[in-house]
């Protein structure tokens, strides 16, 4: 209901502003993300989410047209720079992206030099925003997720002996792990086992056995859903049934083709977006996404959808006009972002001067194959 109200208000504001300016705005936004290669699932999701938002805004017929220029970077830093050059050559005024962290670090350094405003839907490492005042994030930063997870586990007394299994070849997973451990120590949570794997791991039996042997009753998984599914299968094989607690990367486990979702029953996770939520904004978005792409959107799609709305709102605030050059509007966009306050699919968001988003992750649990709030 709050989201609906906010949407109506935002819409009213948008209409009011177009009336005030009485000038049509065509905003050209570049999207960069992996649409081939091992991380393709994320880039396709962010592209599709952004495209839906762009079409919606254009179709709303209030004088704003959003043109989305899409380029594939195959989750490769060098290709990402090429993709960035291509969209800039084609007249992009700002960027949604890049989707994945490592390419984003490379592109954001270049965008910083050339003064191009970037809002990434999903590159969650603090390295992305660290030195660059022109790069903003719409996803949680990794540190936030780690400490928020530890706090939820402590507050709700979800487990007394905790095991952690994380991917030590991945900046995302390692980042969350480090802040989780720090916060857990601060809160007095007992971590009894820590084990790691890499992107190339095929066998997870050792990690699961280590958690079981240490007597852990909660296993924290700051990892993506693909390895998480393998860990759930390995635990099931040896009859180990602790509470599994994941972060936003766990989202997607229920739509993993061929996966026996009964194994995910009782898995908890912190996530900003659930496709099963019943508010109108989410229901409409999910319906449209399914109609166009025949699959359930994940949080990457939702974050990217919100990115386009946030950019349009910020551009209006900054007084951006059709055809303005990227470097001329960058500073105005930065100022506008810090004042911006919007409600989207992934909740209520504001930004600080470092470019980090402030929004509340929701704790969810999987019951009967759907996400429900931990409080329900």
């Amino acid at each position: 209901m709050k989201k609906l109200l906010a949407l109506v208000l935002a819409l009213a504001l948008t209409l009011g502003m177009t009336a005030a300016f009485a000038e049509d705005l065509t905003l050209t936004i570049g999207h960069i993300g992996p649409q081939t290669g091992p991380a393709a699932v994320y880039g396709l999701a962010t592209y599709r989410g952004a495209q839906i938002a762009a079409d919606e805004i254009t179709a709303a017929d209030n004088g704003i047209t959003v043109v989305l220029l899409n380029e594939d970077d195959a989750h490769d830093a060098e290709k990402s720079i090429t993709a960035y050059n291509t969209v800039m050559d084609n007249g992009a005024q700002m960027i949604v992206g890049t989707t994945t962290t490592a390419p984003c670090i490379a592109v954001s350094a270049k965008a910083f030099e050339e003064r191009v405003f970037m809002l990434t839907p999903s590159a969650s490492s603090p390295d992305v925003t660290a030195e660059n005042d022109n790069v903003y994030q719409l996803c949680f930063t990794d540190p936030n997720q780690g400490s928020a997870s530890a706090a939820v586990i402590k507050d709700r007394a979800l487990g007394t002996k905790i095991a952690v299994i994380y991917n030590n070849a991945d900046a995302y997973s390692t980042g969350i792990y480090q802040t989780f451990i720090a916060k857990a120590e601060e809160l007095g949570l007992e971590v009894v086992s820590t084990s790691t794997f890499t992107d190339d791991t095929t066998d997870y039996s050792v990690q699961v056995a280590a958690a079981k042997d240490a007597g852990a009753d909660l296993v924290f998984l700051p990892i993506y859903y693909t390895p998480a599914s393998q860990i759930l299968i390995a635990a099931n094989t040896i009859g180990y049934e602790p509470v599994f607690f994941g972060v936003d990367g766990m989202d997607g486990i229920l739509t993993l083709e061929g996966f026996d979702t009964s194994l995910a029953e009782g898995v908890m996770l912190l996530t900003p977006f659930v496709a099963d939520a019943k508010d109108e904004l989410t229901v409409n978005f999910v319906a449209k996404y399914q109609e166009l792409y025949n699959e359930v959107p994940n949080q990457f799609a939702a974050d990217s959808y919100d990115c386009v709305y946030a950019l349009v709102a910020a551009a209006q605030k900054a007084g951006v006009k059709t055809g303005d050059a990227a470097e001329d509007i960058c500073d105005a966009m930065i100022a506008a972002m810090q004042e911006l306050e919007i409600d989207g699919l992934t909740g209520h968001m504001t930004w600080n001067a470092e470019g980090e988003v402030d929004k509340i992750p929701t704790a969810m649990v999987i019951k009967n194959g759907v996400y429900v709030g931990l409080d329900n």
Partner: protein
Amino acid sequence: MAFLSNLVNGISLGSIYAMIALGYTMVYGIAKMLNFAHGDVIMVGAYLAFCAAQYWGLPPLVSLLVAMAACTVLGMTIEKLAYAPLRQATSLAVLITAIGMSYLLQNLALLIWGANPKVFPDLISLDSLHLFGGELVIKGATVVTIAANIVIMVVLTLFINRTKMGKAMRCVSEDRGAAELMGINVNRTISMTFAIGSCLAAVAGFLLCSSYPMLQPTTGSMPGIKAFTAAVFGGIGSIPGAMIGGILLGVIEILGKAYVSTELGDAIVFAVLIIVLLVRPTGLLGKPMREKV
């Protein structure tokens, strides 16, 4: 008991490596080339078995046969189109072609099956063995993999040593030029080697995904590289060597992870490989003058 359990997990992983290593060692031993696309043929085999079972509703054994037949054709096609024209080229050119082929297969798979990973269905309906009052669990897939390994090793050894085609393969392995002079059709022999290797790849893909049910276009890469290591470890070109190398590699990897550090698991594997190669440059079972395959 924890040790025994880790040992079983190691053998389970190792028997998968062994199965893949058999394909590497076959092709290397006879065609004298490293077929880096082998891991990706495995991936294709696993996808085909997945499609046959999941989409077309075929029974597990028929799915496996479909994958084997399709991979055999795929392997022969790859050999004909990419490797045969390079028969007289330097081995480096062939190696690069193989790497190119590997990427081609991965990206074709991405195009056909998409980037979203799929969980391989449980096609081996053999129940897990619960020993020592449930303390030790051996998965049905592990039992099948080990049995399949032994059967394949015996059949391959008999084939190489007892049949006419096997004899031709040994000749080509020993001296390609002389074999040709003696009237052996070298092209046909190498093509046959690829057919067998790729057929084995389908079996390996099926078993790999039955034990570790994650299927995506890159599924074959890392097991492929580990299996290649196993083949070198055991002595490349030697069939029992591939088997022993594979199982040892799996056991070392799992025990290393369990008792030293999960972070150093892979480092330990490759450190052992380096030590073995320092002491025995031809691998455990490889002899410099040994008849290859």
